[in-house]
């Protein structure tokens, strides 16, 4: 098992290398001199020359590539043109906000999706089943930026129930410095702040989850229906086990693999979703930072965010693969060591 895990982790290195090659190629293929891309628009010739030396752009290509790899490996993306701050500290400050939002959204999507899927599978062919599949297709088809705006329109503008932007009202006391507000406020006993954090999370997290619930429900349903046709389920029914026990002990564990696979595939939707959702809800995370970077033509910042987002995406995919070791005894025993 350890060997399989190490193999999986080792497989990441060539992918990371190729991704770095891809980003390097993008920066070099982009029109114009790379140094002038990295300098602000009003930088003088001297500044461009300085940057060219700093990034080694006057060196041959392979030397440049080596330096680029080294910088990326150290997470050194240089200084933001617009904000004149080290890119990595800007990203570091904002990463917890994005992770917190993504984690809450994923939890909502997984819980709601799996529950809806179970209900649909148990009521197969009934009206409930039909409603769930309609909701599933609709959820996949509605773009998140539209859903977000509709939520704001309904819950903020019309009903005045939930805040439509930011993580906390300005000046709300919050101790702790992990950047994860849910954790910080709870760990320091600031329950009112905790409540405010939750309220602010509600709309962005729901928007982000909306696109995923449908697919998770659909896959859960079909996985359960598949498992339900297996002989051991008939045996369990014949043994006289209660419906609840069959669902919990036999159906769900066996359906867990396709369900976690689809949740893994949805990570892409989740990560990309944060970019759009953060912009809509003025969420101070990495996604809205990317938006600012792109609108300000801030190449170092854009590169930094792209690298961090991609690394995060790859890491999450590996985590999902490792999760198979936990849930699938066959993979654990090495029978499925090909993963």
């Amino acid at each position, binding site marked *: 098992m350890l060997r399989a895990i190490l193999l999986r982790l080792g497989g990441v290195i*060539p*992918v990371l290398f*190729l*991704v770095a*090659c*891809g*980003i390097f190629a*993008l*920066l070099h*293929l*982009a*029109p114009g001199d790379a140094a002038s*891309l990295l300098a602000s628009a009003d930088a003088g010739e001297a500044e461009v020359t300085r940057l060219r030396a700093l990034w080694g752009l006057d060196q041959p290509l392979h030397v440049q590539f080596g330096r680029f790899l080294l910088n990326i490996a150290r997470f050194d993306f240089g200084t933001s043109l617009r904000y004149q701050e080290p890119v990595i500290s800007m990203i570091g400050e904002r990463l917890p906000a994005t992770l917190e939002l993504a984690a809450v959204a994923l939890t909502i999507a997984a819980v709601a999706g799996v529950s809806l899927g179970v209900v649909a599978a148990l009521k*197969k*062919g009934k009206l409930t089943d*039909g409603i769930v599949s309609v909701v599933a*297709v*609709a959820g*996949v*088809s*509605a*773009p998140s*930026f*539209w859903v977000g*705006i*509709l939520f*704001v*329109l309904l819950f903020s*503008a019309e009903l005045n129930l939930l805040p439509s932007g930011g993580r906390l009202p300005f000046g709300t006391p919050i101790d702790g410095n992990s950047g994860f507000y849910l954790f910080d406020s709870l760990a320091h006993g600031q329950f009112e702040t905790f409540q405010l954090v939750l309220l602010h999370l509600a709309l962005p997290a729901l928007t982000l989850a909306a696109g995923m619930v449908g697919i998770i429900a659909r896959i859960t*349903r*079909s996985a359960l*229906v*598949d498992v339900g046709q297996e002989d051991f389920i008939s045996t369990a029914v014949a043994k006289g086990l209660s419906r609840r026990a069959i669902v919990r002990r036999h159906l769900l564990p066996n359906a867990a693999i396709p369900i976690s696979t689809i949740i893994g595939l949805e990570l*892409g*939707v989740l*990560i*990309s979703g944060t*970019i*759009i959702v953060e*912009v*809509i809800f003025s969420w101070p995370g990495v996604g809205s930072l*990317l*938006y600012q*970077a*792109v*609108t300000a*033509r801030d*190449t170092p910042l*854009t590169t930094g965010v*792209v690298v961090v*987002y*991609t690394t995060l*995406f*790859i890491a999450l995919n590996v985590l999902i693969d490792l999760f198979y070791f936990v849930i699938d005894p066959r993979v654990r025993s090495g029978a499925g060591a090909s993963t």
Partner: protein
Amino acid sequence: MIAARFLQVKFLVGALCIGLIALMAIGGDFLTPHNPDDQDLLASLQPPFTWEHVLGTDQLGRDIFARMVSGARVSLAIALSVVLISGVLGVLLGAISGYLSGWRDVVLQKIVETFWAFPPILLAIAIVALFGQTLPNLIIALTIQRWIPYARLARAQAMSLRSREFIAASKIMGGGTVWILRKHVVPNLIASAIVVATFTMATAIIAEASLSFLGLGVPPGTATWGGMLADGRSYITRAWWLAVFPGVGIFITVIGLNLLGDWLRDQLDPKTDLNLV
């Protein structure tokens, strides 16, 4: 029985949605007298459902319906080109990769893995941001990851086709690799590529609208659904129709494509339990 009826409903609703949007894109000029870019500041933010402006007007007094028509054209044209380019590219590369196997396959699989390692949309944003906001760049940005599903499917199918008798027979009869690929392999990959195309078109429309929403879509000045939504966001409390209608356009198109894709998949692959989809 129920499954068959459900399938028919899928086709009907899907076709209706796409028909509606296509009608709007093609016949839009006959449906509205307004020009999408004509401003009329005296008639700004007019509510919808009047004879003069069916879907209301925006902050500059431009007719929302006329702009929706323009947006439908932009969306459909971009999505269609993305689907065509990525389809041709993906099927060809996948067929070569699966049929030839060996080092070419390994190289192609590494390329696929690399492109796939980027979160969707992110790569598109980076490309448009670095290379500039032009129509060709936008199409490249949207294509760069969309050929992969075609390539994966085509590769898997080409691999299994390779061991079939009719391929062996044409090899024995002296058929060259290119000839076999063209005459026997690729034609057998078309059907499933069409299913992939339907779903790809749906994601391409959402991605194009997302980029327009972020201000990275087609060059500014053209009315697009995503761009209209972004503009409408600032007026959300005063004029809901600005942001709601363009979203409805995207939603109808995408749901139509998803339903048609489901239907097509069921048609082509009778083995799948129709209930499941």
